[in-house]
Structures are given as C-alpha cells and as structure tokens.
C-alpha cells in the first residue's frame, strides 16, 4: 500500500487528539497494514454539532480499518458559506485550514461534501495560480500563517476507497449485512466539479458509494433520481424550492425496497432527514424514509454495535435494517 501523505511527516505531535474517547474500545491492531495511514480529521461546522452519529461512526470505522485520525484544535470554518458573498474570502478562510494542516505535514480528511469540496478547490486554485496564492498569503499573514502547498484534501469516503480499498474492507467484514437493501446518495460536491474528482468517481455514472455499500454484504439499489441534488444549497434562500428538490428523491426511495437512504454529507442530511417530516406534511405524503450515514452501515458490518454507531440519533428509525442486522 502506498503512503497517502501529501507531505513528509516530521514527527511532531498534533496539538490535540481529543474526541477519541469512545474509540479505544474498538481499537483493533491490523498487522497486515505496513504504512500507517494518518490524516487530520476536519469536522466542519455541522457534523460535530448536529450529526454526532456521523462523527462517532467515522471515527470508529477509521480506527477499525487502520486509519489514524488526528484532531486539530485550531481548524475553523471551511469558507463555503462565504462563497456567494465574496469568493475571495472563501479562499482565505479555507487556506487558513490548509496552512494549519501544512504545518502538521498531514493531509486533511473531511466528512462533509461541502467542506471537502471547498478545501480541495481552494488548494487547487492556490497551487495553480501563484498570483492568487500571494494575495491570499498576504491576508493570512495577519494571523501568522502561510500556505506554500500542496496540501491534499480528501473526503472520508475517498480515503476508504483509495487508501483502504474495497478488498481490504471486504477482509475486515465480520458481520455481513445480508438481506439489507440500501439506496445510495452521493451528493453534488462529492462528484463535481469533475476536474477535482477525476480518477475517483464519475459524476455521470457514479459507483464508489454503491460499491462500498455492496462490500458490506448489503444490496445497493439504483433508482431514477440517484444523481439529484438535495436542494440544501438553496435552503437559505427558499425553503419551498429546497423542499421541492428533496421531495422527489424521498418519494423515489420510498418506492424501492431500500431499508434506508445512505448519505455522506451533513447538508444532504439536513434536507433528507431534517426536512423530511415537513416535506411529507406539505405534500400530504406518508414518507418515512430512514436516513443513515455510510460509516454507520460500514460499522455494523465491522461488528460495531448500533449503540456505539449513534443510531439513536437517526430521526427516522431504521428499525427494519437494525432488526435484520442485530435481530
């Protein structure tokens, strides 16, 4: 297995490795892994506040598969919300995090599609446009930071796909999710712009999430609105429009045999889980589509309990799914 580090790791410890309390219980030494995989976990604004099930399940599954995630206590906003107001601010706020990661000599692993997208795009812009990089660095100097680059940024799913790999995950499965049917939802910034995701997945025929679902032993179903946008991007402008966008997929998935819709982004979660009740009420529909995060599903297949994976926090209970897996 090749080393995934974008920069040489100088051995300095990270300022903090907090947040791993629950992890120790699931530590599993994997002697077949030669290169230790390390990354700085970038939680973003939403996950550690509203989606603790995503955070704990990602931490637990990473640990179980031999990825060491370090916390960085100085990480801040990724800059995504600022882009529509002042695009250059996004670059500076994002570059602040990239510079912090560069000082630690580690790549960034993000859980949110918007964070992963914004940080990746910023690194791409700064690495390809020296004039923009200088402008950004002039502003970063006010907080004593500088970005030289390159710093690599990857979504948690991309780390699983590219570094752990489907075969290694298959070997680690201790509780195959036989008879479980799941509907994948990728999310826009997971797949696009394709300039940044090239070589990872295709925006037209995406497959990574479906294959990572299949490797758990569950069946990944296809459905008409697979590639639809959740609408989260316009929630701040028009709830009506955002809900109308999310509704189609929820209806589609409720017509499949799927026991749950599987997400990898907290913004998509706001729409499909957070807004689901409202969408159903407004449209006069009887919608009860359980929404889960991929690491929760993976965690079940790795033998981790639904309690530790935070299933209590899933608002529409994936009862059938858990009944099949845990009886």
């Amino acid at each position: 297995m090749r080393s995934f580090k974008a920069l040489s790791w100088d051995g300095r410890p990270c300022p903090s490795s907090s947040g791993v309390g629950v992890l120790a219980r699931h530590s599993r030494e994997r002697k077949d892994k030669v290169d230790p995989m390390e990354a700085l976990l970038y939680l973003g604004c939403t996950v550690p506040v509203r989606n603790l099930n995503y955070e704990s399940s990602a931490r637990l599954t990473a640990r179980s598969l031999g990825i060491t995630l370090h916390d960085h206590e100085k990480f801040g906003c990724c800059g995504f919300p600022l882009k529509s107001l002042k695009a250059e601010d996004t670059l500076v706020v994002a570059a602040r995090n990239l510079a912090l990661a560069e000082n630690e000599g580690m790549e960034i692993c993000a859980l949110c599609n918007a964070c992963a997208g914004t940080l990746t795009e910023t690194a791409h812009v700064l690495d390809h446009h020296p004039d923009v990089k200088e402008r950004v660095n002039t502003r970063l100097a006010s907080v004593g930071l500088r970005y030289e680059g390159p710093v690599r940024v990857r979504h948690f799913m991309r780390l699983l796909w590219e570094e752990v790999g489907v075969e290694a995950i298959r070997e680690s499965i201790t509780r195959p999710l036989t008879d479980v049917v799941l509907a994948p939802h990728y999310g826009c910034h997971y797949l696009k712009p394709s300039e940044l995701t090239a070589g990872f997945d295709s925006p037209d025929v995406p497959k990574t999430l479906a294959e990572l679902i299949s490797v758990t032993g569950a069946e990944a179903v296809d459905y008409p609105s697979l590639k639809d946008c959740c609408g989260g991007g316009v929630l701040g402008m028009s709830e009506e429009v955002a809900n109308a966008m999310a509704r189609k997929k929820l209806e589609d998935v409720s017509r499949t045999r799927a026991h749950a819709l599987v997400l990898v982004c907290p913004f998509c979660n706001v729409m499909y889980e957070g807004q689901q009740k409202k969408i159903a009420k407004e449209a006069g529909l009887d919608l009860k589509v359980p929404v889960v995060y991929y690491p929760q599903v993976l965690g079940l297949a790795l033998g981790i309990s639904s309690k530790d994976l935070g299933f209590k926090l899933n608002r529409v209970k994936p009862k059938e799914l858990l009944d099949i897996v845990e009886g």
Partner: protein
Amino acid sequence: MTIKIWKFFQREQLFECYQCARCTGSCPAMEVAPALGPRETILICLNQGHDRVVEDEKLWLCCTCNVCEDRCPQEIPICDLLVALRNSAARRGNIPIRLGMAIELLAKTGRSMIVHQLDEMRAHHGLAPLPPAPVDEVRDILKKTGLDEVIEI
C-alpha cells in the same frame, strides 16, 4: 457601488455559448422553481448586460451543484460566472436575509450555527468537547478581505 464582474470572469468566454441549454436542462433548481437558468443568465449578460441579472433575486435560486458547468460542451466556467454575479449582487445589497444572518453568525461566533449545551451532548455520545471556534482569527481575516464592506460584521 457597481462592481465590474468581468474583473473576476472573462466576458469573452461567454461568446463560446451557443445556447444549447444543456445547462438549464440539467439544472435541478429549474426543475422545481422559476429560477433564472444558466443559459438564460448567459443570454441576458450578453444582450442586456449583467446589471439585469445582478438586480434579480432569482439569481439566488442556485444550489451550487456545479452540474451546469460540468456538462457544458463548450467548457464555459458557468459556476464561476454565477459566483461572480452573486458576489456583485451582494455588494449591491441583493442578499437573501437568511444567508446574511448565517454569515453574521459566522463572523460573531466562528460557526455558521448556534451551539447550545454541546459538550454534554457530545460526552453522552462518547465524544470529547469541541475546542472553541477560532472566532477572532476568522473575524480578522474577514475584515482584512473587506467583507465588512458587504455586510456588517
């Protein structure tokens, strides 16, 4: 204050557009709402000037999904155009209220959402408390970049 959006986006690139409407046909917001549409936006910019777009609140019905740009056969950086237009709109005070509130919250607290009794909740789920958000640093950066000219922070 009029901002020349063409400083951030090369107007010449729009001449590559042959109005095939693949962008608008792919736009998820257009499917459910009377949004502006990427094809229409480009046409208005070319024929009537970008002022017409910048003053229209429908400009904000974009979920930034990038599908228009990804599918453009002429490889026009449509998302960059839409971002430049929204940045210009923000400068003129055309900002959705909820977006403005989120940014104010970000500048004041370092987070885009209100955090309440979080440590107990995290502890309950076996997670360590979050370190404080770097609010001073983020605010410094935002002031340095002139965001305070766009909205009050």
